């Protein structure tokens, strides 16, 4: 890939900004936290104040500290699960799509089974078989979530691989004697990059949802702070009924913001990866400076006003001798 240029679209910039904010929170959040999230030595049920920015829980814990500390586990599990699920879906999808035949039948069956079984119940079943001490391990939880999240991406990548496998450049690689594994992962896979990136974003999104849900229904260790456990404690202490909004609204907003930023980033993927796409079309600023209508209709090529045309393109040689 050549030098990446910064995207121009405001949507993508906003997405990058939000996502970057949460990444920073993941890295330094626990250090910034003013108190230990588990310490119960404060007055319970305080409303937000200068000492406790988001108040305290009914057990006397600092909510702001929980939010900052919880970011790390949430994001790490989500990113890990997203990454592993994407690797799984590329391996399985591209292999099935390229090899065809029995391998395709087998791998397709596998991904169809995973697609057909509802993810969350499966997750709950697998999770309940885990030894209790591994439930506090982010790595294990991440792997379990990735197991339920790869199938959709594999289906999409398989379909795309099937359309690429008969392309001439794949045949050309076969002609020079390239091995199958290299054709799949060095010739075909880079062409799937836009789909891959988009699939990564959505599996990360799915993983956040899955992890928070597991924590919310109390299936992960309550010793590990994440946004889901915060919601779990808020729910079990009747925070919504007693009007303690500062307990459950902040983690909810954080989850929503991360999700929004991932969705916004997805808009930028094509723009980011395919440089030729960026040059097509005129930006609205260009249209304004040229005195063109805001929307350019299909089947009605715009015409520059003579004054502007003269300015941007001084007419070259004139017809002579006629």
């Amino acid at each position, binding site marked *: 890939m050549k030098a990446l240029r910064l995207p121009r679209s405001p949507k993508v910039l906003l997405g990058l900004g939000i996502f970057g904010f949460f990444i920073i929170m993941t890295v330094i959040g626990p250090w910034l936290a003013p108190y230990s999230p588990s310490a119960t030595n404060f007055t319970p049920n305080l409303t937000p104040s200068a000492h406790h920015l988001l108040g305290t829980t009914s057990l006397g814990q600092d909510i702001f500290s929980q939010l900052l500390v919880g970011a790390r586990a949430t994001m790490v599990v989500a990113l890990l699960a997203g990454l592993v699920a994407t690797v799984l879906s590329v391996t399985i999808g591209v292999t099935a799509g390229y090899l065809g035949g029995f391998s395709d039948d087998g791998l397709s069956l596998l991904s169809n089974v995973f697609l057909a079984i509802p993810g969350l119940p499966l997750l709950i079943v697998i999770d309940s078989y885990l030894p209790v001490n591994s439930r506090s391990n982010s790595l294990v939880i991440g792997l379990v979530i990735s197991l339920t999240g790869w199938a959709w991406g594999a289906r999409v990548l398989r379909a795309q691989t099937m359309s690429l496998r008969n392309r001439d450049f794949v045949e050309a690689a076969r002609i020079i004697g390239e091995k199958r594994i290299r054709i799949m992962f060095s010739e075909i896979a880079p062409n799937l990059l836009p789909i891959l990136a988009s699939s990564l974003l959505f599996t990360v999104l799915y993983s956040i949802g899955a992890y928070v849900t597991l924590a919310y229904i109390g299936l992960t260790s309550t010793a590990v702070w994440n946004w889901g456990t915060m919601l779990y404690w808020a729910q079990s202490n009747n925070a919504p009924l007693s009007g303690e909004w500062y307990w459950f609204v902040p983690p909810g907003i954080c989850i929503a913001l991360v999700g929004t930023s991932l969705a916004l980033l997805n808009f930028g993927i094509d723009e980011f990866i395919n440089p030729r796409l960026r040059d*097509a079309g005129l930006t609205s600023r260009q249209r304004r400076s040229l005195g063109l209508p805001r929307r350019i209709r299909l*089947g009605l*090529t715009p015409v520059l006003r003579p004054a502007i*045309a003269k300015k*941007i393109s001084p007419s*070259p*040689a*004139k*017809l002579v*001798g006629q």
Partner: protein
Amino acid sequence: MSAERLEAPPLVDERSRSDSLVSPLPARSDFVLDVSNFSVVYGTGEHMVRAVNDISFTLRRSAVLGVAGESGSGKSTLVYAMTRLLRAPGLISGGVVNLNTTRSGDAGEETVNLVTASEKELRKIRWSHVSIVLQSALSALNPVLRVGRDFDEVLKTHRPDMTRAQRRERAAELVSSVGLNEDRLDRFPHELSGGQRQRIMIALALALDPELVIMDEPTTALDVVTQREIMNELQDLRARFDFAMIFITHDLSLLVEIADEIVVMYAGSIVERARANELYEAPRHPYTLGLLNSFPPMHGQRRELTGIPGSPPDLADLPTGCKFHSRCPYAMTRCRDEEPPLTSLGDSERSVACWLHVGGPGVSVPVELSRDATTKDRAHANGERP
């Protein structure tokens, strides 16, 4: 009304049509399309690319104008922009495209400038006065509709007074006029061969009896035998329906057969314009000569030809001066600095943009590019190129 016209084949005398071409300026009613100083750009600012530069030509009624050019010559951009079908970031940066929409029976004159026409006017003009046949018929036809439906839609839109039965009858008539059986109307595009699809496209283009049909490489994707059949079919159709035609292709030898007049385009500009047979017999521009010598001959001794060195022009990175000079075996110092204007050569109606011909005293025209050149001279010139 159109059905009547379809049956009356006013066979145009070849000679009289050719003669009308030579007249210096057409009478007003004589032209069907008059383009002057037409320019098109892509994008703006530092990435702006000039795709069509200051092009002028006149197409007379029932005549065939051939546009020859390779990739990057702007030939397709020209016709898409002319009909205002070019997509963003294409922009028309100047010029006039006058279309004569006077039908043969009409009293008075009516012309429309397509560059300033509104969307409503354009919608009325397209198909009924100007129609386009594209290279890839498969992508132009709707894959989920039987081809009969395409005819039905066109006729329904532009001839609302026709009944369903009349439309079907007209479609059958059109399809049989391009040498296909009527039952093809009930087929889907993928069930037809490439040649049959292209015939369907031609029949569709003629559905509303237009004065001008634009053909953008209609036979490039076809086999040579099918191409021959379609070219023959086109000659017959023109004799019957008497439409003018702009025929775009990279195959100059095909153009010489079908066109009355040919313009050769290079990097967005016309480099040579001439009557078809004159262009073939005595090309004046080195590029035209090179193109003609790029087709291996079908008879005679086998000898090495060289074609044209270098690569087709990259519009985003054009050389200064004459755009062809970096590939031209006759290039002089002047060609690097100054762009030659398209200049009339005085004999008949032909012009060329080359300093060899308008360079003034001190510049001698190589024999193979002069008016007295024989075919042998030109063939020889090619063999000797460095």
